[in-house]
């Protein structure tokens, strides 16, 4: 049933059926985000927006995947991953050391909370269900780690109780795997019956218990296969924890802290699980007392080159997979499919035309104002391709505009070449490139590097965009099998231009407060465009974020203040939704002009929509009341200072 024609469409780890395919598509770069020192010794909170790669990371540590990797270790495409996991201590040369037990928390646990049971009873049932499922998972994982079959080989498993008095209620230990499985299934069944019953739940179901007793069993280590522990460490992988209720998450965290189990628990949760306070604090509050927090998007943002390298590996692996299953001369490299340069011969004519137009404009200014003559001469001597010359001339145009604005009341001394060189930095060049793209409709968002930036540090967002390009390439090869499958920059931009509409525009349908988020994104995008496209490019290469003071941010975290101001409360909710969906990214405590600011950067798909630069660092400070008004009433564009484009 699965489609390997375009493997970029295989997005969620849980939808990739075979372990070999999963490993083939897994990009090892994400492992660099784990702490180098003993990553399995402490609880980890792994957080991201949807599609950040949490489930893939967890799935990697399940025994069947690790066993497959050990078996494939000699194949070149798996070597890097094998070595990395070996360094981390998850595997050794011939066997697996860390035994993962993966448990999706979206199943049944939330419904348990809906029964309306008294809090102690709800907690006891939660722990009982968790223990039953950890037992079932541990039995499967133990057999899988020893390459045995579940359930056929359960008799070879022996389960012993924890050393202290606490025993699993209803299970006489020591026992074999069959008895343990029967116990766990019976507990699970009885709790499920309570949940599904159309009658009142009071007084039915098992008694439950107060702590995670299975962690103590695994600590001992009380679960052995043929008398031996199946690995050196158990790792309980709780996925989709955001689907638990707030009370359940608190209970779970408290239990883990109280028990201080040797068996490590990793908790993967979407940002939406965090409270509004936590989201506005960019994940800085929760989790710090319980273990390490890895916010995937945040971690990638700190090392953008690593992200680019990691996702280009993922893209290459997917393209290779498509080539493996394709017949004919399929290209096995994604980078080869997306042209990353504008310097091809067919574009020269347009570039030369633009060069003439821009250079004539600049010469015209210099004719009227001779102090710029030397700068113009310097540009005329520039060597390089027509495109490089064009960028150089457009850069000069910006620099002259800047100088004219600043020097209206100064003397008319001729300007020397040194002054030009001092001012001619990479930011202005990047702005010139952006202005040229806008003025002459040159493609701007194309090529591997810009595509990576459009991923906004979210793997799924990147894969969707890359998948759109790959799909086009497939269609192209079908229609014109003799022609190159490489997509021109123009075609890439056209395809990517549609991405905003496809992925963001229907937000009001997909998310709570979606309309407010969309209004706000539109306002900020329009505002950033206004600021970016001023003739003197004052914030080169451009602006793609706004900032509110940390003081005003406090207001958004103050429940009492929000109670008294419905607009601010609505704005805080809108921000939380935008963070949870990775549409805005907050950077806290940025120092500018003796004040501290929270910067709200736009997701790069929004930058694409408003033709803004993908770089980080460009933002403008605004009072909170202005931003609230933008969300409620929109932003009114000011055309007075914009380029006529």
């Amino acid at each position: 049933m699965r489609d390997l024609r375009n493997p970029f469409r295989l997005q969620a780890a849980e939808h990739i059926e075979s372990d070999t395919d999963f490993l083939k598509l897994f990009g090892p770069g994400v492992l660099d985000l784990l702490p180098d020192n003993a990553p399995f010794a402490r609880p980890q909170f792994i957080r991201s927006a949807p599609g950040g790669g949490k489930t893939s990371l967890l799935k990697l540590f399940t025994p069947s995947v690790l066993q497959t990797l050990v078996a494939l270790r000699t194949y070149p495409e798996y070597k890097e991953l094998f070595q990395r996991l070996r360094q981390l201590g998850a595997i050794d040369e011939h066997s697996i050391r860390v035994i993962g037990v993966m448990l999706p928390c979206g199943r049944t646990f939330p419904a348990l909370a809906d029964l309306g049971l008294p809090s102690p009873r709800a907690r006891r049932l939660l722990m009982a269900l968790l223990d039953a499922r950890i037992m079932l998972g541990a039995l499967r994982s133990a057999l899988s780690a020893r390459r045995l079959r579940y359930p056929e080989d359960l008799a070879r498993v022996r389960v012993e109780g924890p050393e202290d008095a606490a025993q699993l209620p209803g299970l006489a230990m020591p026992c074999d795997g069959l008895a343990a499985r029967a116990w766990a299934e019976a507990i699970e069944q009885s709790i499920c019956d309570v949940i599904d019953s159309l009658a009142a739940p009071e007084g039915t179901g098992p008694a439950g218990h107060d702590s995670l007793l299975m962690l103590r069993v695994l600590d001992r280590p009380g679960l052995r296969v043929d008398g031996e522990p199946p690995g050196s460490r158990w790792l309980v992988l709780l996925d989709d924890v955001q689907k638990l209720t707030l009370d359940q998450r608190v209970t779970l965290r408290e239990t883990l802290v109280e028990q201080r189990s040797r068996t490590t628990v990793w908790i993967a949760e979407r940002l939406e699980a965090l409270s509004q306070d936590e989201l506005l604090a960019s994940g800085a509050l929760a989790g710090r007392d319980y273990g390490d927090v890895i916010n995937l998007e945040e971690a990638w943002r700190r090392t953008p080159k690593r992200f680019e390298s990691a996702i280009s590996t993922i893209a290459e692996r997917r393209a290779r997979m498509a080539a493996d299953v394709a017949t004919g001369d399929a290209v096995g490299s994604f980078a080869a499919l997306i042209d990353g340069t504008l310097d091809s011969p067919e574009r020269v004519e347009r570039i030369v035309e633009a060069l003439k137009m821009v250079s004539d404009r600049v010469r015209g200014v210099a004719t009227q104002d001779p102090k710029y003559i030397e700068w113009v001469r310097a540009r005329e001597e520039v060597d390089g391709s027509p495109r490089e010359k064009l960028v150089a001339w457009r850069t000069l145009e910006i620099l002259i505009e800047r100088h004219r604005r600043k020097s209206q009341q100064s003397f008319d001394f001729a300007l020397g070449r040194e002054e030009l060189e001092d001012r001619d930095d990479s930011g202005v060049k990047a702005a010139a490139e952006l202005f040229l793209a806008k003025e002459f409709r040159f493609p701007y968002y194309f090529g591997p590097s810009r595509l990576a930036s459009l991923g906004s540090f979210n793997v799924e967002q990147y894969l969707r965009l890359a998948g759109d390009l790959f799909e086009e390439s497939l269609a192209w090869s079908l229609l014109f099998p003799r022609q190159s499958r490489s997509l021109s920059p123009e075609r890439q931009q056209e395809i990517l231009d549609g991405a905003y509409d496809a992925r963001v525009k229907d937000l009001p349908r997909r998310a709570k407060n979606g309309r407010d988020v969309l209004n706000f994104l539109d306002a900020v995008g329009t505002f950033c465009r206004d600021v970016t496209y001023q003739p003197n490019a004052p914030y080169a290469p451009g602006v793609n974020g706004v900032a509110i003071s940390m003081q005003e941010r406090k207001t958004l975290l103050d429940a009492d203040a929000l109670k008294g101001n419905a607009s601010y409360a609505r704005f805080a909710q809108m921000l939380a939704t935008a963070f949870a969906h990775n549409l805005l990214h907050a950077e806290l405590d940025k120092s500018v002009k003796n004040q501290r600011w929270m910067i709200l950067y736009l997701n790069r798909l929004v930058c694409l929509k408003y033709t803004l630069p993908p770089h980080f660092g460009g933002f403008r400070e605004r009072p909170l009341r202005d931003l609230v008004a933008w969300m409620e009433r929109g932003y009114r564009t000011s055309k007075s200072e914009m380029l006529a484009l």
Partner: protein
Amino acid sequence: MTTDLRWRNYLLRRGNDATGMWRALFGERERNVLYALGLGFDERMCLGLEALLGAGGAGKRDIRLLTFEEGPESASQALAPSRATNETRLQDIVTRAGCGFEQRSIKLVSDDGRRIGGRSIAREFAGQTEFHAYTDVVVDISALPRGLYFPLLAKLLSVFDQPSNDGIVRNLHVVVAHSPVLDASIRDEGIDENATFLHGFSAAEFEREATREQPRVWLPVIGRGQRVQLDRILALVAPDEICPVLPSPAQNPREVDDLVLEYRDLLFDQLRVEPRNIIYASEYNPFEVYRQIVRSVRHYKSALTPLSGCKAVVSAMSSKLSSLGALLAAYELRSGSGDDHVDVGVAHVESQGYTLDRPGDVPPATLYDLWLAGECYAE
């Protein structure tokens, strides 16, 4: 496994036949009727009640109005005037006809923001004693969202299926004012991030770790504009086999073609659904949808017996009438015992509210009555 169908012989009446049936029924003897309906913005809300009261007859006519608040941020707030109009119209009908009236408020969201509408509405009808004063219970789903009427009807069917503790056989009817054009013009807005299994069916049972290896068959009853919902249910169900249910015959003769075009990338490019897996069922007959689903699931269960059977998931994303067929199928499969039992979940995605993009020219709605339990089935 049985091949029999609970509703092999069924009673479905539409338009004038429906009112004719009520007239005949109420003409037989004095009948006390409890009429439950939701307060919503849908212009079809009062059509069924007006028709039923117009059928005359002696006996009590009590109205149970089910109200629900979607919250101040709901897109449905924009439709508050339509809702107010419906409420005024209902009060007018109640006053004119001298009906008994009771209003019950259904809590949709818990204090910590979780969807609990299904459980809330099922709790409102605790057991048989609720209905002792009545001979007939009519549930009008025309203005009720799917997340409410599915659990409600599952609860009522289970109550009516228990042996009556006063020896009286009571009738359960479902009424719906059917208009595919209007159904298609109502769009979910603020769709929840995650799909869930509705209360009243095999929700927890379906998700058991112990049976996670069993193959999953998904039967989505597909309507227009449901791409986001399909994606989210797909993520929840992770099916091994997909059998889309498409409406044919339908009011729009090209409806199937349009749906295939709308979902071709998902169904055929991404999921590689076998064309032979597509199930066609009449848009006008929920019992046909029911029959097709029950038979398909039983067939899968039988074929997959060597793999310890299968689990099935039904999703209703089409008109209310077709959705009722999915509901009946899920209820019957879940209620079976022994070999006849199949774990059937009803996967659904809630939304924060609705928008209405009403076309100018809407054909009048047709009233349907499904008589689900009671005298006509008594042996």
